[in-house]
């Protein structure tokens, strides 16, 4: 791959606390299932302990491995002229939105993200399909970034279509 024209990956990785964030999500989804199965197994039908164990094992393995993987493949970069993100490995997607075409900059922090001081920055353009999302930045960094992006886009004339 070294000898063809290609897009280089964006420079920055997400905040490392994203690992915790993703793992908390997985725990929130898998945890109740395991707990329900285990409770039923202990109280009603002992057979259910087996699927509970399997679910727990799969959940733990998934929660340990996948976030590490995601952390490796999610990347972002903001330059003076564009916002650039890359996500995925099997279905890799790179999105580039030029500064001059950005219409809105949103910062969203869910409950888990607030606990972990993380934030998601979404940048939209006039295209219904051109939004660029960076999920899992440090909250302070995200706020600075949003302020900076807003300032740059306000300075750009035109209606960005």
């Amino acid at each position, binding site marked *: 791959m070294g000898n063809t024209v290609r897009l280089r990956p964006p420079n920055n990785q997400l905040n490392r606390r994203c690992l915790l964030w993703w793992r908390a999500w997985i725990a929130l989804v898998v945890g109740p299932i395991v707990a329900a199965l285990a409770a039923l197994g202990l109280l009603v039908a002992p057979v259910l302990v087996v699927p509970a164990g399997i679910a727990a094992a799969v959940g733990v393995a998934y929660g340990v491995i996948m976030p590490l993987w995601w952390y490796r493949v999610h990347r972002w970069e903001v330059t003076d002229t564009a916002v650039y993100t890359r996500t995925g490995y099997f279905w890799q997607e*790179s999105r580039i*939105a030029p500064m001059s075409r950005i219409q809105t900059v949103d910062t969203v922090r869910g409950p888990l993200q607030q606990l972990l001081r993380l934030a998601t920055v979404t940048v939209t353009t006039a295209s219904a399909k051109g939004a660029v999302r960076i999920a899992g930045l440090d909250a302070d960094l995200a706020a600075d970034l949003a302020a900076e992006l807003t300032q740059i886009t306000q300075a750009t004339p035109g209606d960005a279509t």
Partner: protein
Amino acid sequence: MSELENAERLDRRMITMTAVLTGSIAVVGALVVGSTLISSGTPVALSVLVVLGGMVAVLGLSVGVDYIRWRATTFRLTEERLELRFSFVLNRRRSLARDRIRTVDVTASPVQRLFGIAAVVIGTGQHGESGESEVKLDAVSRERAHQLRHELLRHAVDTESRTADGTIAELDWRWAGYAPLSMLTPALGAAAVGAVANVASWFGDSDDVVGSVVTDLLIAAALFGYITVVVGVLLAGAIGATLLFVEMWWGYRLDREPGGTFHVRRGLLTSRSISLEERRLRGAEIIEPLGVRLARAGRVDAIATGIRDGGQGERTAHKTLLPAAPRAVALRVVSEVLREPDVASALTSLTPHPRAARSRRLRWALTPVVLVFAVLLAIEIAAGDRIAAATGPAFGGLVAAVPWVFAVIAVPVAVLLAIDAFRNLAHGLSGRYLVARRGAVRRSTALLQRTGVIGWTVRQSIFQRRAGLLTLVATTAAGSGAYTIPDVDVAEGIAFADEAVPGLLAEFVERPDEAYAAGLARDRER
């Protein structure tokens, strides 16, 4: 309302129209209700009283509501704004900045035309909350409607007029021949036959003579075989599609008007007048459904900001600039609309995609065929004897052949479509426009203004990575929001995206030295 100077009301004839419409419905209703009452033994005088009372109530209510609507609604056109007020019990005020107005569409249904009125929809072409970006004046006189259209779109006059104004295309009745070739034909035919069957089933319940005749006809059709039914469906569909074409495109004309506006006029029963500002135009798309393409014809759609894509039925047709017409006409219209004289030659010298894209298409086309064949074969092996026994001796022998017949028909079709899809894949540049062509059953050639591209999305699945391909998606504010160029060669695709929209990708592109030098050499040649 006196504080609004020059305020106008809607056309008064809207009330007359409502009165006549509800009046005629009320008369029909009265006749039905009245005869039912009388035949069920109600005294005649009482029946007449009830019916007349009902009529007066319905008529009074609808005319009253319309009268209030007419009284309460005023609009006013000032230098800067279009204001619409509704003040009855509550006060509502809408105001549009005139320089934000992007579309003024005039439509008149047959009834409205009878009364000389038309509906005007004024849009700012903004995405987002639907309804907020539009003002509808649903009854103004026909003359005022066209006058409004001119006044509201006049503000663009200061923009340059590079070519002469005038008619770009007019209806040629030979185009009606393409109408039955559309995908719609079988669906329309099936709907028509289905409706007939449905009506027949209504009558089938009673011992009605007409009903039994229709049923008999259907049974006869079934006896004559499926070919008759298929031919009948297609014939009905062809007639339906042609009638639809006549209704939609009667009196079609595409003009370029002073002030940089395109104006489409068409419609037999419902007349439509659709305008599109040139500065909202981001390109054009040539759509060739398979049947139409085989007849060497194509339709032209505008790619413009502010036309909502999908939804709202009728509005989707608003972006069509030219109905299916011979390819030469379509190309001429595209090049005149886009002011790009070399479109035809640019389309013949597009860059094809690598052969790996063909293998992918063949795989996609053949995988479902193989799966269905396997299922059919499995059913045949597992239960073939029983099915054969159940269908009787006449068809028993055919059951074993079903999977093979399927394969013999489906494999060539799938392969042909896949190869066609591959051959249609192409991209290139034509002056100020980026060209993306794809599709087999519905081939689309999008010409997108290069300055209208407001971002790139580059997708690459693990399979594409191994085949050295990637999918480019140009995002834009216009049309469907994104135009896809699937399965281009990695290096060529990135270089193309970089060249098509200078500056956007450049800082993220890695070029090995020799490729960079080759790129420079190619640039020098241009």
